């Protein structure tokens, strides 16, 4: 490498570790907030139809009643009718959100930046969880290729986004295991993590926000019984 190339790479490294990292967290946080507000703006509150008096809905039945209610809820949810896929998805999403909070290196970085840190999992534990997320990602990947109904609705962007979601885990693990060049891997890890964070509000990853808004706040068959919001756009026009 020539001197100017080395200079260029290290300047880029500085930039990726510094301003871009801050920007990524900021864009992710602000983006989630803005998308949440947008969803609220697309809906309005409406008094629910009082078929069953609200206080009757809200009073809690006996333990057996509540248990039955939950079992019915689970039975008709994806956990009930597609248990394997739902299980893999649950592991994938939990790992995706919990693991990064407890990575020792992350907490050390937090400590250096703000003087705060969470508890950390042991490195062996982190590695297991990381590999679990990667394995679930691989399962989604294979499912997209080999399951006919999933293949029928798969767009190239689905593969790209799956890679973006798994990227930080793959590169984090490769760096930790000192595969190839550590410095390079860490740089790739930080870059892939930044891409993922920035994509959350602007891609299908924003289902993270939509999921809770639509299932908890918006009235509907599969939502919460006391949900009161309805879409505004349904009244827009008849054409």
């Amino acid at each position, binding site marked *: 490498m020539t001197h100017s190339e080395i200079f260029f790479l290290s300047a880029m490294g500085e930039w990726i570790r510094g301003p871009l990292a801050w920007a990524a967290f900021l864009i992710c946080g602000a983006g989630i907030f803005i998308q949440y507000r947008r969803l609220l703006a697309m809906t309005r509150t409406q008094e629910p139809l009082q078929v069953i008096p609200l206080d009757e809905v809200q009073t809690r039945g006996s333990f057996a009643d509540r248990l039955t209610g939950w079992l019915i809820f689970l039975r008709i949810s994806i956990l009930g009718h597609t248990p394997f896929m739902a299980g893999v998805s649950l592991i994938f999403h939990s790992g995706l959100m919990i693991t990064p909070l407890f990575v020792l290196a992350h907490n050390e970085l937090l400590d250096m930046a703000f003087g705060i840190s969470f508890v950390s999992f042991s490195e062996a534990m982190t590695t297991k969880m990381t590999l679990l997320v990667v394995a679930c990602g691989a399962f989604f990947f294979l499912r997209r290729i080999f399951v006919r109904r999933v*293949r029928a609705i798969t767009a190239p962007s689905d593969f790209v986004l799956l890679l973006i979601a798994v990227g930080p885990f793959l590169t984090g693990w490769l760096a930790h295991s000192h595969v190839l060049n550590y410095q390079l891997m860490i740089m790739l890890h930080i870059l892939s993590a930044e891409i993922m964070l920035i994509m959350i509000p602007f*891609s299908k990853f924003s289902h993270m926000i939509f999921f809770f808004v639509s299932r908890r706040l918006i009235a509907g068959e599969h939502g919460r019984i006391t949900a009161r919001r309805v879409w505004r756009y349904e009244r827009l026009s008849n*054409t």
Partner: protein
Amino acid sequence: MSEPTNLPVDPEPIREILKNHQQQIRLGLRMCAHCGLCADSCFLYRANDRAPEYMPSYKFLNSIGVLFKKKGKVGKPAVEEMGALVFENCVLCTRCYCPFGIDIPALITLGRRACRSQGVFRAYDK
């Protein structure tokens, strides 16, 4: 299906529908994870050897979804194929279940409207 006509596609009414329901369509398309979990909730899908063309998300993605992405610029054969999807492969029973709560029947309805605006609709006397 209705008799195939040789009239070209008139993009205006389609664009009108896309414009009036822009938010709803864009939201549905963005949120759909293309996961296929809605498939088994459709009785037509289960009754037709689990053919992907009967899957709820397939039906809205390949009708109103395609029209939205192409801004209504499609040929008549494409509209007729969409017509087959939204009229023949779905009865709008609203039983489809999406874990995110995407309103699939509402989107299929918009697909029907777009087809109807081009003279493509269900022929009940077939």
